[in-house]
């Protein structure tokens, strides 16, 4: 089997990796604090919509002022991150201070994310049709820079989580928030910080999907379900910032490989689309069934309602 390794392929691979890695990274940081994030796919799509809207709008604004437009996509990425970050703050506060179901809240935000993402992006999509001109420049240095930035972010998160006192506090909230409180952690504040930071990264990563990787967006892309790939990557790698790297690279490669195979060998397009999902499922099963689970366990209190005063008999 011969696969042509062209600069083109390299760029797409690096884009796939950067997108999936950053999303999975942010999601992992969020969940490390004990908050279940079932909204991931909705947040993913919302961020793509926001980023497309921002990219086009800022581009036009800069043009009208006569300023070079190179910064537009970067601003779009930051804006996505910001929007996602706000939701992260909200989720963290709600899930820590109210005895509500993490799953239910996450699930509803997923739907909201889809809907709001559509609203955010559909008008500009109608106006300009093709968003290619508004995406990141299609040059190898840009793509490699994005990958480098993603990896740098990962290293930073790793350092934060595993080397600093704050990181220890975040992880303690995920393992046992009651013991964490006893150790002196203000659980609500720490979770809000982790939630904000995590979803900021998620939002930035998701913005790369239309602006770097696919160079395309329409309102129907919410059905693609790529957020769930990031979810699976995070699950299988134990939400560890460094372990996420190989998993994200392989998964990104798988998706791109499947598309490339499809183009070269006429692999039916739906089979190619199905492969990543089947692999996700298989990965989850392998994770659950083997020792992997013991080694890469989720935080013990992930998704558990943090409720202090219970009834006693």
């Amino acid at each position, binding site marked *: 089997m011969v696969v042509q390794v062209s600069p083109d392929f390299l760029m797409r691979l690096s884009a796939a990796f950067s997108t999936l890695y950053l999303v999975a990274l942010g999601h992992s940081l969020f969940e490390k604090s004990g908050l279940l994030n079932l909204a991931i796919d909705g947040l993913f799509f919302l961020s793509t919509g926001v980023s497309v809207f921002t990219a086009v709008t800022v581009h036009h604004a800069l043009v009208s002022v006569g300023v070079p437009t190179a910064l537009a996509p970067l601003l779009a990425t930051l804006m996505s991150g910001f929007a996602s970050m706000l939701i992260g703050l909200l989720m963290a506060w709600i899930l820590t201070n109210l005895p509500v179901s993490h799953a239910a809240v996450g699930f509803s935000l997923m739907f909201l994310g889809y809907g709001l993402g559509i609203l955010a992006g559909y008008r500009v999509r109608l106006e300009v049709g093709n968003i290619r001109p508004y995406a990141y420049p299609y040059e190898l240095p840009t793509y490699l820079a994005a990958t480098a930035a993603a990896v740098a972010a990962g290293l930073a998160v790793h350092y934060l989580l595993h*080397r600093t*006192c*704050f990181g220890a506090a975040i992880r303690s909230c995920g*393992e046992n928030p009651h013991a964490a*409180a*006893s150790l002196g952690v203000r659980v609500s504040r720490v979770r809000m910080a982790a939630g904000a930071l995590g979803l900021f990264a998620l939002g930035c990563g998701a913005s790369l999907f239309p602006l770097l990787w696919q160079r395309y967006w329409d309102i129907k892309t919410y059905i693609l379900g790529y957020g769930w790939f990031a979810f699976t990557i995070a699950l299988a790698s134990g939400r560890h910032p460094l372990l996420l790297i190989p998993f994200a690279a392989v998964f990104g490669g798988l998706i791109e490989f499947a598309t490339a195979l499809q183009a070269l060998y006429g692999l039916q397009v739906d089979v190619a689309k199905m492969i990543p999902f089947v692999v996700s499922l298989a990965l989850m099963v392998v994770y659950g069934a083997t020792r992997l689970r013991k080694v890469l366990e989720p935080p013990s209190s992930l998704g558990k309602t943090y409720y202090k005063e219970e009834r006693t008999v």
Partner: protein
Amino acid sequence: MHHDGRVAVSVKDLRKSFPGGVTALDGVSLDIHFGEILALLGENGSGKSTLVKVLYGIYAPDSGEVRVNIGGKLTRVLINEPIEAMHYGIVLVSQVPQLIDKLSVAENLAITLSSLKWKGATSLSGVSRVSSVIEKECERLGLKIDPNEKVYNLTYTLKQQVELLRALTIGARVLLLDEVLTYLPTREKKRFYDILLKLRKEGRSIVLITHKLPEAFEVSDRIAVMRNGKILGVVNAGEITLQEVRSMMFGAAVKLLINDKTPSRKAGKTLGGEEIVVEQLHVKDDYGRDAVRGVNLVVRKGEIVGIAGVAGNGQRELLEAVVGLRRPERGIVRIAGLDITKRGARLARSLGVSFIPDRPLEYGCSVDHSVLDNMAVPFSLTNGLLLRWGRLREIAEKVIGEYQVVAPGVDASLKSLSGGNIMKVVVSKEIESASRAIVAHNPTRALDEVSAAFVRQRIRSRAERDRLAVLMASEDLDEVLRMSDVVYVANSGRLYGPLDPESTPREEVEKLMVM
């Protein structure tokens, strides 16, 4: 006396009750002095744990004041979270170490130190800084702890030492120790005492919660006794005897015993064959500690075997192992001759063994469902796929009538009943549905005197008339003495006995409980 008279912490008229109508603190007022060791004694449910949890910010009191000595003046404070308590120099160490298992010792301590901004440590400081600090403190205190060791690898003793290290490193002025010494081996306990005495000399306050009287007398300056959410009295250790304290703790129950004479057990009652047999059983608890250490036990048909003892001495783990809800590490459990040791709860149930759990809300019922639904589970009368609701309803109505459960009807949701009535439902369905044996843990807890008496009479009647084997553990000593044919005392995972309840003096049993 070694205290210098200045008050470190003072609480006034604290009240706290929990949903379900349980009053944990009923107007508690207490002064804690600098440079003293104050023992806080009381039975389970007396409120001792709740009091210190309020001081540590884990619970918020319904009413009352907490005042802390700040710069020589007693100032009223609101403590909403543990971090705030620590700011005032108050640290709580619980019987169950509140540490994060997956993190290392250094990481756990780093969390506390950075939260308090201790010695300039901030959130973003590296954890490695803390390691060197820990090593120094360990030397000072004579402890051997590896800062990089993960907490789940530590023994129970070491975990408690880490907790102590944490408290001392941040310079705790008031140390609240909740049943901390209970599980420590004797040598470590002595070491701990030495440390406590040293801390007292430094002018710190120590509140020692324990139910072991000798321990309290050995180190404390003053003793406070709690019962039913109230403080019965605070006395200097030298001015009271052990017996007097014991009677304060177990108190009024003694009078009841005299009034409610045990109906005489038939002399020479013929007991049947061995129904429940336990051989050399070793069981671990939820935290990996040895809760049951080599227990042997036999319960015959028609016999009631009672296990007395303060909570936390292995009774729960023993009973759960007998009904198949917990896997023993070693040993054998036999029911009706069948080895059921690692076979799960289903087998025990199918053999006709019912179980009244100590955590009734967790294992004994489903509060979101009706009385009838809850009863249907153990009775399980079916015609193929279909439940015989008619018959089940009759049984349920009969049972709640007999037990006088206060409920709108069998269709009422358990959630709507009071705690005591929920308990009645849990207990009654197990007692009435058993066909071979009843295993019960605190069967009359949260029941009023009349209901409790009824439950006991029912259990006894089922044992005698229906030849059921009954294995019961209760923290209520009177109940055990009143009901059992044979008594054992659980202490630190071992069973002492068999004792004859009629001929053994009560003091002897109590001594075994608190030694």
